[in-house]
């Protein structure tokens, strides 16, 4: 009586992943986003091969603020550096910042949101008040406030993982300031998930709270976290740009944000040097957009409500 009429092929996780990829890649947005992102990742991986070593004031070759020409495809900046060179080298920093900061904010936001949502009560009230506070503070004002503190904690000089410490300051700052958004979403999702019966079942099965959170809640939060992660990436690039705009970038390792801010400080806008502003800006735009596209596709793929009823 227990024999199933229809033979199921014993598909495991590999099959599930294949199916997921097929669906995911079926979205046009995902394709565009992935191609675009791959392009920037390649650029970030081998900037030296593409445009030679990073130019600084000391080895700049061009004249000041030359419009795009055959020699300088994207023109030069106010110090005479080749903008193409800067933009290509900036890719690594900007992508590193965006990705690491996103990881930090996702980890922080998920932990806090999940804890608040799962335990509820006083923990929820206080954690959410904290979250609200970070929400009320415009993120990069908070970043300005936190930066020196983080700098104090992280120490100065030396290199961490081959990158200068001030980069990590920015990364930490962005991570710290963008988690509130994630925490909110994760919490609301957790609130509904924890009412699901399988959590009760896990409790009856004798699982501890930690194990319930890690083994039951987290996997079900992944689509949400993944999809919102894309928005956080866009946010991280944005905050990084704003921080640089306020002069807190590392002048020796220019990110796209630093380039924008330098262009702005040099008066590129009023001097009509559109190439200085345009090139890094378009890069920022393309990377955030590709993350958003990928995130949307992820959301569509994971979210059963977006899928047609099976």
């Amino acid at each position: 009586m227990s024999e199933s009429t229809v033979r199921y092929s014993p598909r495991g996780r590999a099959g599930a992943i294949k199916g997921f990829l097929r669906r995911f890649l079926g979205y046009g947005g995902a394709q565009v986003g992935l191609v675009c992102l791959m392009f920037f990742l390649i650029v970030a991986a081998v900037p030296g091969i593409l445009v030679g070593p990073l130019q600084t004031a000391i080895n700049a070759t061009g004249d000041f603020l030359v419009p795009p020409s055959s020699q300088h495809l994207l023109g030069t900046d106010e110090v005479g550096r080749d903008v193409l060179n800067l933009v290509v080298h900036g890719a690594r920093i900007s992508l590193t910042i965006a990705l690491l900061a996103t990881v930090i904010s996702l980890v922080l936001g998920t932990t806090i949101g999940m804890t608040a949502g799962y335990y509820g009560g006083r923990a929820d009230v206080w954690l959410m008040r904290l979250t609200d506070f970070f929400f009320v503070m415009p993120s990069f004002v908070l970043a300005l406030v936190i930066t020196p503190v983080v700098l104090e904690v992280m120490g100065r000089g030396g290199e961490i993982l081959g990158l200068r410490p001030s980069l990590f300051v920015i990364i930490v700052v962005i991570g710290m300031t963008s988690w509130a958004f994630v925490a909110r979403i994760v919490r609301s999702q957790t609130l509904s998930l924890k009412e699901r019966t399988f959590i009760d079942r896990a409790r009856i099965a004798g699982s501890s709270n930690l194990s319930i959170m890690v083994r039951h809640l987290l996997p079900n939060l992944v689509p949400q976290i993944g999809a919102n992660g894309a928005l956080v990436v866009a946010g991280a690039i944005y905050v990084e740009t704003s921080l640089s705009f306020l002069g807190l970038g590392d002048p020796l390792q220019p990110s796209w944000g630093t380039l924008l801010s330098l262009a702005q400080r040099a008066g590129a806008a009023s001097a009509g040097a559109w190439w200085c502003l345009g090139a890094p800006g378009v890069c920022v735009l393309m990377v955030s957009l590709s993350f958003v596209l990928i995130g949307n596709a992820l959301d569509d793929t994971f979210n059963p409500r977006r899928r047609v009823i099976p």
Partner: protein
Amino acid sequence: MSRRIFRIVFRALGTLLTVAILNFILFRIVPGDPAQLLLAGARTSVTVQQMDAQRARWGLDRPLFPDQVVDYLSATLHGDLGYSFKFRGRPVADLILERLPATIVLVGLAQMIAILCGVLFGIYAGWRRGGAVDRIATGASMALYTMPSFWLAMVLVVIFSTGLGWLPGYGIYSPGANIGSTDRFLDYLRHLVLPVTALALGLIGQYVVVARAAMSEVVTEDYMVTARAKGLTNGQMLMRHAFRNAMLPVVTLITLNLGYVVAGAITVEAVFAWPGIGGLTVEALNARDYPVLQGIFLLLGASIVLANLIADLAYGLLDPRVRQ
């Protein structure tokens, strides 16, 4: 009745107090001595005695705890926001009130435009999910959403101000002199165009995304099938059944964003030399002008608490199911 209201107000005040205390602590963690910054612009050499005098002048020589905290809290409770360091004893309330109108006009107008366009596009895109309008509106608003707003602002300036010379790219009035009040108003409007556009374009995306998501959710609801079964036309379905339901999350977003109207838009204000709260925040931060910072964030906190309350009420009006 009054006891309940009292309790709600009390709780709101409690939240504000928390914000106030956190602000107090936070801004003082930041390295930077206001006294030193106050003297930074001096063109004669500054002595240690002068620095100490400055500290004494602004009460910074006293212990942080309990003196300064207690003073600050009791003053705040009495509705006294204190006096600015940077602006040499100008009442914080004055400073904020002076900047507030510019910010409210700028951000408020931008929000209104963004809400109007964003919600319309979003609702329509969600209603016809996958259609041409959806693809274009969603794609464009995503692009705008991810664009750093100050960059957008600078691009607008390069094109329309320095490039084409059509519109002024900075300030709220043309520099200079007395002109008739109608001209002055027109001048003001001309100055508003670019900053409002820059801000609104960045905000539209958010509304499109939320409204579209809400709408495409509503479209799949069972009561829409009921409406169809009742023989309603598409227009009737959209207007009578879908719109109000789809507005629920949008209204929350709107009210919460309206809470931020008083915060100004720091980067856009900076690009357009717009004398608003955003600029004041940056100036105060650069000078470690604690009272002003505290004042601004208290205002922000208050308006967000208020916005939350309005959101609750609005939500309750729109959605009878909502329980708080």
